[in-house]
């Protein structure tokens, strides 16, 4: 029974079913949602950790893969993130008390000079949905802010986003300065004008064209 409910929860996340009153997705109209089911599972004594690992994360992973394969687009991913958030509200106290743990910390920001942030937000949501603590520094972020955040969160991985070729230069500068200040820090980069070659050239550790790629990178390094 527990497994079936966790499976159901993963589907609620995958398809973005937030709560019972939510009309989306049409095929789940009238059913419960991630909100109620998470509460039910906790009340039935299922551990918060298990809900995260076996319910929420698989759902988030599936939507990430569908997004990569162009089967769904940004709004559907945002619906999944919303369903995930509705569930996380119930789980937050367990993370705060240490009863449940996230896999690691990811610090993300759009680099100095750039104001684009939809892509960055999406990456932040997907990484969080895959079991990481995410610190979002916002847009127009300089090296100093990244370095301070890394110092406050040792072992965190940094994600840099840029949508303009002009701000790619800043990506290089920020990557170098982070690595100088806190040697060994892993830096992942992404955004429309960036590619694998550029990543190698600036000494970053991973490039990915979509959020799922950075999740896979994190899983390979941290988890």
């Amino acid at each position, binding site marked *: 029974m527990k497994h079936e409910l966790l499976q159901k929860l993963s589907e609620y996340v995958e398809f973005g079913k937030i709560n019972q009153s939510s009309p989306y997705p049409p095929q789940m109209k009238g059913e419960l949602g991630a909100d109620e089911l998470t509460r039910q599972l906790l009340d039935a004594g299922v551990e918060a950790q298990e809900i995260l690992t076996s319910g929420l994360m698989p759902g988030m992973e599936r939507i990430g893969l569908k997004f990569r394969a162009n089967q769904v687009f940004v709004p559907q991913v*945002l619906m999944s993130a919303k369903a995930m958030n509705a569930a996380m509200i119930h789980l937050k106290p367990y993370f705060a008390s240490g009863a449940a743990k996230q896999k690691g910390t990811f610090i993300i920001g759009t680099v100095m000079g*750039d104001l684009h942030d939809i892509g960055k*937000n999406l990456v932040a949501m997907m990484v969080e949905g895959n079991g990481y603590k995410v610190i979002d520094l916002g847009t127009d972020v300089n090296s100093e802010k990244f370095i301070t955040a890394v110092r406050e969160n040792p072992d965190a991985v940094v994600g840099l986003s840029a949508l303009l*070729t*002009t701000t790619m230069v800043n990506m290089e500068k920020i990557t170098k300065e982070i690595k100088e200040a806190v040697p060994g820090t892993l830096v992942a980069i992404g955004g*429309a004008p960036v590619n694998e070659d550029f990543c190698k050239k600036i000494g970053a550790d991973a490039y990915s064209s979509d959020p799922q790629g950075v999740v896979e990178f994190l899983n390979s390094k941290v988890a």
Partner: protein
Amino acid sequence: MIREFNFKFDELVIDYKKIESILGYTSGQLPPPFNYYLEEALTEAKCLADIRGCYRVMDDPVILEKENKILINDEVFEVGKTLCKEMRGSERLAFFICTAGSVISQKSETLLHGDDPVLGYVYDVLGSSIVEAAGDRLQSILEQKVESKQEKITNRYSPGYCQWPVWDQHKLFSLFQGSTSGVSLTASALMTPVKSISGVIGIGKGVRYREYTCTLCSGKACIYRKIRDGMQIPLV
């Protein structure tokens, strides 16, 4: 002379098909809540009073095709090879700035970071469509104006596209002597409000209008290209 316009939402031709496809659906197939969200955003957009645009026509541009540059008065625009070619035959150049305004830009930002990122995204996509539609409107006003002189116009091109660096926007903005339709530039040459565009349109008897297509752009990870490929619909 600088010409400035205030656009009403209703006089703009919004590309609804494109909005729906960016949201991931074919035309007329938006399910709840996206259809409600779009309706809500459209209702609010009808009240927007800060959709604005301006252009300034400059005479006698010198198009240096070998050097990939265009000279206007004493200003050098490093527009790149593609644009020099597109501007070939222009007797005059119209520089423009357009904005969907700060209201919608802020609305989407607040929602995206707050209560409802999905609704925020709908506003974001609508805001982008509005500024593009304002660009279309400005372009057609210009087209009508030059038609009387038997002249034609090119498509519009923006700094940041086709190897034209964004920092040339500083030069572009300086042509407007402060009358920039409420749009300002950051030091790194980005415009605020976010939902703004700027660029240039060629005018002359011998110019050609060419559609802007994915083939002109090298962005492989572009979300629009992915939508086009994923849904097999012809998006530019």
